[in-house]
């Protein structure tokens, strides 16, 4: 759970409303909602989550428009398509609403603050490093993202392939573009099966979406557990695969902490506290953030191992 004690107690004593808009309903954002609830308990402020029905960016915009009309104090958002939100964010800020984003570094200049669990390229490089190590620096590999439209995934993908290209020159990416798993396990599964056929010499995969378990499952079914998989991972879905080794490494950051930190930052901004390098957002990994421009980076990557994966509950 969120670790901090009361973050940013209300300056003037009135109850502030902070709304977190997540991308969609799934275990990841369910966990994030836990963080938000924790913050609500810790501060007594009106902090709650709004969940769009699907990943369609228009739904986030429409929720945001409605919230602007309701005159809330701050909106936190994990954008599906950051750029499409820019005009609405402008509108919100013109109306005096604080806007804090998470996972949207590329539109940081338009918001009050963007909170990142880490620098994208650093996180992406972890994938590359892990896969490189697992393969011993040799062989063909393929990379997946959830969707080509997902900026963060694309950033990690780029960083990972770059890392491999520079540190493990013996490895070849089989495709110029990442494969899409459409954020679904069965797509990851069937794409993997096809790749196995089209590129029989492939040695490893990495997936920037949490659906890499589909790859592991496919390899298990094909009896190809000699291949390596590195993926973003959610313990509730991936623990089995991490424990039996069909997924070599799982990476993540804790959504509850990220949600807590993002909303806590929004509360601090409402109270006109400044957030700079060294500020404590009262969540694990965000005790000592680094501020660069409008982005506050924590350092909160998680690496799951067969030993530690059961300690997490999201």
């Amino acid at each position: 759970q969120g670790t901090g004690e009361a973050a940013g107690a209300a300056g003037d004593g009135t109850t502030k409303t902070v709304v977190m808009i997540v991308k969609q309903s799934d275990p990841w954002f369910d966990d994030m909602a836990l963080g938000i609830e924790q913050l609500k308990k810790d501060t007594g402020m009106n902090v709650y989550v709004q969940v769009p029905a699907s990943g369609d960016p228009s739904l986030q915009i429409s929720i945001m428009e409605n919230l602007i009309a309701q005159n809330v104090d701050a909106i936190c958002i994990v954008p599906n398509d950051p750029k499409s939100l820019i005009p609405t964010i402008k509108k919100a800020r013109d109306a005096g609403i604080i806007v804090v984003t998470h996972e949207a570094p590329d539109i940081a200049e338009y918001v009050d603050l963007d909170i990142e669990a880490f620098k994208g390229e650093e996180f992406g490089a972890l994938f590359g490093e892990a896969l490189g190590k697992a393969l011993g620096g040799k062989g063909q590999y393929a990379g997946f993202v959830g969707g080509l439209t997902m900026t963060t995934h694309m950033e990690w993908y780029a960083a990972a392939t770059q890392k491999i290209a520079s540190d493990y020159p013996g490895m070849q990416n089989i495709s110029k573009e990442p494969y899409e798993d459409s954020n679904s396990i069965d797509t990851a599964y069937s794409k993997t099966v096809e790749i196995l056929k089209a590129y029989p010499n492939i040695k490893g995969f990495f997936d920037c979406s949490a659906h890499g378990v589909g790859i592991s499952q496919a390899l298990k079914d094909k009896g190809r557990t000699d291949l390596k998989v590195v993926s973003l991972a959610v313990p509730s879905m991936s623990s089995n695969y991490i424990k039996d080794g069909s997924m070599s490494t799982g990476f993540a950051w804790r959504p509850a902490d990220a949600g807590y930190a993002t909303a806590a930052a929004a509360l601090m901004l409402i109270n006109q506290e400044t957030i700079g390098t060294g500020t404590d957002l009262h969540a694990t990994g965000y005790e000592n953030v680094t501020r660069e421009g409008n982005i506050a980076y924590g350092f909160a990557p998680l690496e799951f191992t067969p030993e530690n994966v059961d300690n997490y509950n999201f």
Partner: protein
Amino acid sequence: MLKRHNGITNTEMALFAIILIYSIVVGVVNSGFFNIDTQFDIIRSSSYVMVLAMGLLVVMLSGGIDISFMAMALFGSYTATKILVSTGSSSILLAFAISMGVGIGLGIINALLVSWLRLPPFIITLGTSNLFHGVMATFIGAKTYGGGRLPPSYSNFGSSTLFKVHTDIGDVGLSTSILFVLGAVLLTYFLIYRTTVGRGIVALGNSEEATKRIGYKPLLLRIVAYGYMGLLAGCAGMIYVCQVNAVYPDKMVGNELMVVAGVIIGGVSISGGKGRILGALLGIFIIYLLNSTLIFLGLTSSWNQLFVGAILIISVAVTSYQEKKKNQKHLIFNASI
């Protein structure tokens, strides 16, 4: 001079031709396509949709349509999983039974609404699809069950095979799910060709008034047809869940129209009373074939949809044009747009 029923229809011939030509093209580009495991993999990934297609075929023969099957499949498999997880049971049979039972119940709701409202079932089941999904997530649960929380029998079943062959690219196995497809095909064949009720369903799709006049009860026939759809949806939902080894509260729904497209491409009439099992299977097969051969053709993800859309339009155009020419020859004028 007259076509007999057990022959093969023009539409099916056209589909075979498309599949053949396409397969040759893919095979020339990448000979890996002709490996037996490619077929096995298409069978595995399409099997739950094939099962759904059989249910949809029966509903469409009755002169209706049902686009709530994904919601029913989700509702059934989610409920079953939730019950299994909370009781600690790991019986896959129980899960199937619950899922199919729920499916039948929801299917009957569809049947009652369609009979009562007398509006196009497309719109009605669009409503119930939203309704079912909403009710499930609001009242039953909206949490995801990942592989770590599911009974191991799920993944054991999902990755079980009838037999395995070891090849240089790995083990190749024919998924057990093919038994379900075969079962659904046989059951559907039996239902629509060998039972009086089934003939009544086909008759209903031809003419409701005439069916009433020879003593059938349309409501009953609809309950059988939509209930059967629900039953197969429940079954398909479990197949999917086991193969994926995870239960999400929001997967499956949203893919309905592709299945409908497949069945219609297979020559099943949207106005009812006409359609064959083989056609429906071929239609679905084409869509899966397209979706799962892109990598063979070396296409990257961003070309995926463009490609599938283009082929889809070609097959729609070819099959519709055949029908149109036939109608023109017999001077039958199209009564729907």
